[in-house]
């Protein structure tokens, strides 16, 4: 197990600076998620950890030792690639055995460990098959077994669930999480799917264009998003963003006024759909679409200031398409951002439900 540290790490490909300056500490045994939109440098960061890419600047530390120059094969890192990257010409057994070949593990012990790893991810009956004879979910488990068989000090998962169907994704999420808890291995999960990140990771590192936007627990990111980017990236259905004005610590939006410490100038008010409710006052509009989501109903409302989404508990709709409605909110649930810097104003965040 290892404690990982990025110190001013830079990564360039030719003239393109993909990671300008990355600083990050991952504690021993922690499960963190690198979350961000496609192309923001998540895989690049992961590959630097694996030793596949060499940082262009800064220092990468494992347990306090600089490993910038240490070769991938000497790092004892297990990695599951987005495509699983199983070796197509080898049986599942040989795939899982592959990392042990280079460790000069005695044959009997190696086979025992393969068996153990295969049991762990429940692919023991597939050992004789070729990867092409496995389903996506099975390939994924094999890739996990191969990453785990060498008992890595660091486990890296690059979008491990993105090629699975929705049901499988749900069960693999649980499985990977409990596996990580059982083994206690430091784990970095790369994903562009906020639900994956919030459900699995202890801490989330939200990235945008190569920079870390915010680091925090899933709750931190949801209730106290540091920036407009994080607020709109986290949460499904997405947060409603409404332009407002502030003066001397008072925010005015659509006629409603409420105090927010330090607010002045143009602000953007973020309102989560589940914090809005239909009432006698507030934003007026009419319902253009109703999306039942199981235990909740999502109403898409067209108002004078744009589309607003409202989430209501319950499994049957209490309103109809075309109906005129007014949408109200409580100030304590509003996230107020400075429009100019896109940053959250201190003193404006959603309070965790009691």
């Amino acid at each position, binding site marked *: 197990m290892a404690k990982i540290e990025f110190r001013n790490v830079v990564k360039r490909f030719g003239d393109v600076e993909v990671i300008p300056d990355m600083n990050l500490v991952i504690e021993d045994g922690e499960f963190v998620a690198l979350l961000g939109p496609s192309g923001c440098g998540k895989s690049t960061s992961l*590959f630097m950890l*694996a*030793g*596949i890419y060499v940082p262009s600047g800064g220092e990468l530390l494992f347990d306090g030792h600089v490993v910038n120059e240490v*070769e*991938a*094969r000497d*790092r004892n*890192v*297990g*990695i599951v*690639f*987005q*495509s*699983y*990257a*199983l*070796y*197509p*010409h080898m049986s599942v057994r040989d795939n899982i055995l*592959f*990392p042990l*070949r*280079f*460790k000069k593990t005695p044959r009997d012990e190696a086979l025992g460990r393969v068996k153990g790893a295969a049991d762990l991810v429940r692919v023991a009956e597939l050992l004789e098959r070729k*990867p*092409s004879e496995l389903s*996506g979910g099975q*390939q994924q488990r094999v890739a996990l077994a*191969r990453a785990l068989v*060498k008992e890595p000090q660091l486990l890296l998962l690059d979008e491990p669930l993105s*090629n699975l169907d929705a049901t499988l994704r749900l069960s693999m999420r649980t499985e990977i999480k409990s596996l990580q808890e059982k083994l206690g291995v430091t784990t970095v999960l790369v994903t562009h799917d906020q639900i994956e990140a919030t459900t699995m990771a202890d801490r989330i590192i939200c990235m945008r264009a190569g920079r870390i936007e915010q680091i925090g627990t899933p709750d931190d990111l949801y209730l106290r998003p540091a920036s407009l980017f994080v607020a709109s990236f986290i949460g499904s259905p997405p947060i409603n963003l409404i332009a407002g004005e502030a003066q001397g610590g008072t925010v005015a939006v659509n006629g409603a006024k409420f105090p927010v410490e330090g607010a002045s100038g143009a602000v953007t008010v973020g309102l989560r759909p589940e914090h809005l409710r239909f009432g006698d006052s507030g934003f007026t509009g009419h319902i253009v679409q109703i999306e039942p989501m199981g235990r909740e109903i999502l109403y898409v409302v067209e108002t004078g200031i744009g589309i607003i989404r409202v989430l209501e508990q319950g499994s049957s709709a209490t309103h*109809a*398409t*075309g*109906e005129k409605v007014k949408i109200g909110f409580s100030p304590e649930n509003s996230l107020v951002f400075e429009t100019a810097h896109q940053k959250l104003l201190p003193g404006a965040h959603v309070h965790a439900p009691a």
Partner: protein
Amino acid sequence: MAVKATPAVFSAPEPVVDWDVLAARARGLRRAKAVVLYAFLIAVSLPIILPYFWLVTIAFSAKTGVAETAVLWRSMAVVVPTVIALWLAAAFAQSRRQMWIGMGAVAAVAAFAFALLVGPDLHIGNFIFLWEPDFASVVRSRIGEVKGAVQFPNVWHAFGNSILIAGTQTAIVVTVASLAAYSLSRFQFPGRSAMLRSLLVLHAFPVLTLIVPMFLMLYWIGLLDTLFGVILVLVAFELPFAIFIMKGFFDAVPWDIEMSALTDGASRRQAFLSVVLPQVRNGILAIAVFTFIRGWEEYIFVFTFLIRNTNWTMSLYMYWVRDDVMGVDYGVVSAVGVFYLVPSLILYLAAQRYLMQMSIGGVKG
């Protein structure tokens, strides 16, 4: 409140569609297409099959000094209907099983007819060169002439030379092309794209234009009239295309599995050997087969650069046999031809399964 749109009501009667007529028309069209296709296949396959068939028939039936063509016509009377019947069997079979039964029946009938019409004329006397190095004199003496003009080496010697040239050339081309193509596919280095472009340009020129300079070069480095000299020339001409083909194969191997091997503890070389190379197996097999056959059938360069008859390859042997005994005994010439053909045939048959499925087997997601 939401206003429901009333669906438009169509009062016009629907036109009557006769599905059977449509189906019959589609069936007829498919039949017609199949007939045209098979007619075309018969038309192109006959001219290819016939010469080879004649070659074999002549090799096993012609007699010294006798210019007799009746057996050829009789064999043709068997082959042409057989080829047509085979295609028809393929065309009209409703299932794979029927096709095999039909083809089997055609083959059985053809074999019987062949044994009846051509069988009595068959013999292996024309393959005399396999056990009699001075066969030319023997053949000539049969018609009264005393001696052949050409001093022939043992045919097995020429056979060995050909195997040596084709085999060595193949080994070198496969090794160098794999390594070069891997580097071109994976690494960025100055001059990479220029190199890629020149690979294609090199292949575009007719190699014969270089025959005089090559001759001089070989002469000056002292490799004229050596097998190794010819091998070098052949390798040089074969490499660009082989590299190009192999680069395509390497390009199709995902980076992931290589990176994965590296994190699994392999060195770059181990990753190449144990993970990347097996993915391009079909490509290696393809260039190996084609390079070998190219070396096996090589004629111009060996004709120009090899002089001593102990350096003769099968193509030179064939050439001189034709030159020396053609007028006397075309049966022997054909027999040498058949002997020359057999290794290529065996190689193709052995590798055919892999050449047919020349694609990369990746892992599906």
